[in-house]
């Protein structure tokens, strides 16, 4: 009897084992480890197991950590907003208007994903630098007398690189959502007297919100936790929380404190994401 059952649910069991295995090995264990570490104590080059709240106390009492978390949140917010708007427009164009160019544009959207993150961030150094492509073009065109330095090494350059890198993360799910909307919905809306923009606002947009939200969330989390871009393109004041955490695991050899910071970041990001999901739901319920 149970053998037959086993036989029948074989695929299901394999999938479940894979899923649970993944959760345990790649999420459960590492986070449990980091969480445990966050209560340890550190003595020069030795780490001691303990149950000390000291690391968290330190994170809360020093303004530094609040400051860098705010830095990260600011950059992540800008990047999320801009890449959501641009990504949406791009996806909309692709799904609705592109026709002949769709495949080519789609390819161009995907291609950067095949190159390394580092390269994609680094390329902006070449574009925005003093002797960069943009400055050369602007000086040659006579717009600037001498190369501008405000393009690189600030929040602007960090944001622009992250927007560039993360835009497909919004555009792709939105595109998928748009593709799935039957033409009938749009026609039904027009049929009921809705001008095109109202059809977009009342019918098309709400149906793409899940895709948009998923994309935006990924972008927010990834840009919040990024350390490569700020260290490559950031200015003297643009240190982000991930840079600080990395320094704890490297230069400072203070894993416990780094773990505490990582846990705090995790909580903050989860809180923010949860909050935005809740707001999104409330708003869409109120509006419709």
């Amino acid at each position, binding site marked *: 009897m149970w053998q037959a059952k086993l036989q029948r649910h074989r695929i299901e069991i394999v999938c479940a084992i894979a899923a649970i295995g993944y959760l345990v090995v790649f999420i459960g264990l590492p986070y449990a480890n980091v969480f445990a570490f966050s209560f340890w104590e550190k003595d020069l080059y030795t780490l001691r197991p303990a149950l000390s709240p000291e690391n968290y106390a330190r994170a809360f009492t020093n303004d530094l950590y609040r400051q860098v978390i705010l830095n990260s949140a600011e950059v992540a917010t800008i990047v999320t907003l801009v890449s959501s708007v641009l990504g949406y427009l791009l996806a909309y164009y692709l799904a609705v208007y592109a026709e002949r160019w769709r495949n080519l544009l789609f390819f161009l959207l995907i291609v950067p994903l095949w190159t390394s993150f580092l390269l994609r961030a680094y390329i902006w150094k070449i574009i925005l630098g003093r002797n960069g492509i943009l400055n050369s073009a602007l000086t040659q065109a006579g717009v600037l007398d001498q190369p501008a330095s405000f393009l690189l090494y600030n929040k602007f350059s960090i944001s622009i690189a992250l927007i560039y890198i993360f835009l497909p993360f919004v555009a792709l799910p939105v595109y998928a959502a748009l593709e799935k909307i039957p033409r009938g919905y749009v026609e039904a809306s027009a049929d009921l007297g809705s001008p095109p923009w109202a059809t977009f606002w009342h019918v098309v947009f709400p*149906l793409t919100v899940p895709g948009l939200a998923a994309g935006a969330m990924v972008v927010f989390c990834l840009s919040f936790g990024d350390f490569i871009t700020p260290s490559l393109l950031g200015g003297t004041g643009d240190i982000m929380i991930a840079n600080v955490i990395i320094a704890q695991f490297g230069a400072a050899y203070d894993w416990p404190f780094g773990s505490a910071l990582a846990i705090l970041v995790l909580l903050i990001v989860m809180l923010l994401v949860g909050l935005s999901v809740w707001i999104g739901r409330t708003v869409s319920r109120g509006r*419709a």
Partner: protein
Amino acid sequence: MMDAVVRLDRVSKRFGSLVVLDDLSLEVRRGEFLTLLGESGCGKTTTLRIISGFEEPTDGAVYLNGRLVNAVPAYRRRVNTVFQNYALFPHMTVGENVEYGLRFDRVPRRERRRLAEEMLARVGLADKIDRQSTALSGGQMQRVALARALIKKPEVLLLDEPLSALDARLRKELQLELKRTQRETGITFVYVTHDQEEALVMSDRIAVMERGHIRQLGRPDDVFERPETLFVAEFVGASNKLDGRVVEIRHNSVIVALPSGDRLEAPTRSAGDLATGTDVRLIVRPEHLRVAADSSAATNVVRAVLEDIIYLGSDRKLTLRVGERLRIELQERGDRLPPCLGTRLGMTVDIEIPPDALYAFRKGRGE
């Protein structure tokens, strides 16, 4: 003229080299239930989409209430559609779906809700107003789609095979409901279907379409009883087809010889061009055939072998074989059939075909 709500004047629609509508003209009278009947690809849905504004005609003019609307976008036409798959907005509740169109008529929110309740009550779904639209059955979705369109008080309601996704019983029920709604509201309905029975039951007039043309436009009984073309005759209603050749021309009729040797007289009606020797097809409805009384001297009798008797409640359907290959069907009320017919399975019976019930059409070459 003035009571034509919709007028299509020599409308053609081509997609590339594909001609979907070919020089089609049609007037829809105010308050009527007009059905566009035809097989898929005949252009009936395209006709509907041209009226609603989703398609622009390649040639010709579209008038709504006498006004040329070729360049008027769909959302500005006082025409609403019930879609084949209902196209209910999945992210809205039933009530939100129904009141949706009123947003654009500047109806205040509360009034919208009230009207939606009213409209849903009319289709018997008052209690579902706050239900998510995706949680309904097919028939319920259909009614919501109808309510959503009717709440706009359209000049014309277009229905694109609205019942095709439902099972037979529900379809019958909704056919009557739709017809009743149309009568009560007085709204002009233009109904698209490929189901001739549906068309016969509901319509005031039927336009039978084929390959981008209207082959016949008339009352259901006209179309059913007096088909003007072979296509209409074959398409509308179950038909027996008897191929033969004209062997004699009389004053108002022709004599047609069947391959079995039987000879039948058929009225010529409008078809005056049937010369002797023309190949023709005779069309006759199963219910018009009669089992001839024994040794009756009736004219227009064919001999046939009784192959089967199918019980249909009050009716019986008889399957008969004429000559070697030709099969015909006869439908008759059970009490009008000769008694003990069951014992004559496999035997020969005489079948009488009243000349009035026979339609002769020249064969081949389409129309």
